[in-house]
């Protein structure tokens, strides 16, 4: 455990670069957040990280608030504030300064190439986050089945509200475990 005078700078160093490469939204930097918070800095266990991830996904607001939660868990309210600023400010400034310039080029060949190129990067990053979460837990076959079923649902019926899927998936899992079909 480190004291907060070293945690706060660490939060800035972790989150500022991640903010600028979080193409496709917050979940694209999930793998690195987990690695830094659990392995590099030891602020929490893998299980606690998975719990904060679950909370950030189920609560209203952007899932990227996971950054806020990591800061809060590591260094209380100051940590929450520092992590939030470090993660939301850089990308916000970029969007504020760049979005209208960027949109002016819409329709050109290179605009669409950049968009496609970064969509692929974003897809790879989001899948990396999923991989990191699954690799860190001892996921059994039924649990993996749940993950794949939810993924398939999301792909085939993309208009379903995420909150509804989240509640349904969690409900099924709770029923399994409380019914004794899954080990605790």
């Amino acid at each position, binding site marked *: 455990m480190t004291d907060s005078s070293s945690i706060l700078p660490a939060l800035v160093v972790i989150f500022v670069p991640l903010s600028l490469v979080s193409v496709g939204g917050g979940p694209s930097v999930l*793998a690195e957040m987990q690695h830094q918070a659990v392995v590099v800095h030891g602020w929490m266990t893998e299980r606690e990280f998975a719990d904060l991830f679950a909370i950030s996904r189920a609560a209203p607001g*952007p899932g990227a608030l996971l950054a806020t939660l990591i800061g809060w868990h590591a260094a209380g309210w100051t940590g929450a504030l520092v992590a939030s600023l470090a993660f939301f400010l850089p990308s916000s400034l970029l969007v504020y300064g760049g*979005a209208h310039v960027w949109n002016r080029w819409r329709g050109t060949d290179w605009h669409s190439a950049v968009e496609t*190129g970064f969509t692929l*990067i974003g*897809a790879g990053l989001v899948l990396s986050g999923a991989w990191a979460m699954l690799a860190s837990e001892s996921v059994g076959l039924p649990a993996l089945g749940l*993950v794949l079923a939810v993924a398939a649902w999301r792909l085939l019926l993309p208009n379903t509200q995420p909150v509804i899927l989240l509640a349904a998936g969690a409900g099924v899992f709770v029923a399994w475990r409380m019914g004794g079909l899954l080990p605790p």
Partner: protein
Amino acid sequence: MPGANVTNLAIMVGQRLRGLPGALAAVLGMLMGPSLVVIAAAALYREFAGTLMVRAVLDGTALTAVGLLVGMGGQSLARVLRTSARSGRNAAWVGCALTVVVSIVVLVGVLRFPTAATVLCLAPVSVALAFYRRGPADGGGG
């Protein structure tokens, strides 16, 4: 554009309506309330994390959320490949696109390379591939 999508949208709308103060108000409004809610939820979790029921709910939510991520990533990839197919792109491009995605998963997800450095290295490759597949149909897409 990097950053959370709803936050970015809020900034763009706020900026268009009221300039800098608008963007600032929009992003703060989008983050302040939810961040307090999410911290309150995490504080509650600390109190009750020990119970079996809470354990099951959190595990189930985390797994479902991971499933949603897999679906999201798959959907982005499918969208790129579908538009490619419509405009008659070749199999080489599909291979390139899949290679980019798989490389990232291996580097960032499995080997835990730093995300920022990996993106800085692979983004130019990915964009260049996307650019060249747009050229004349029988251009030099090796």
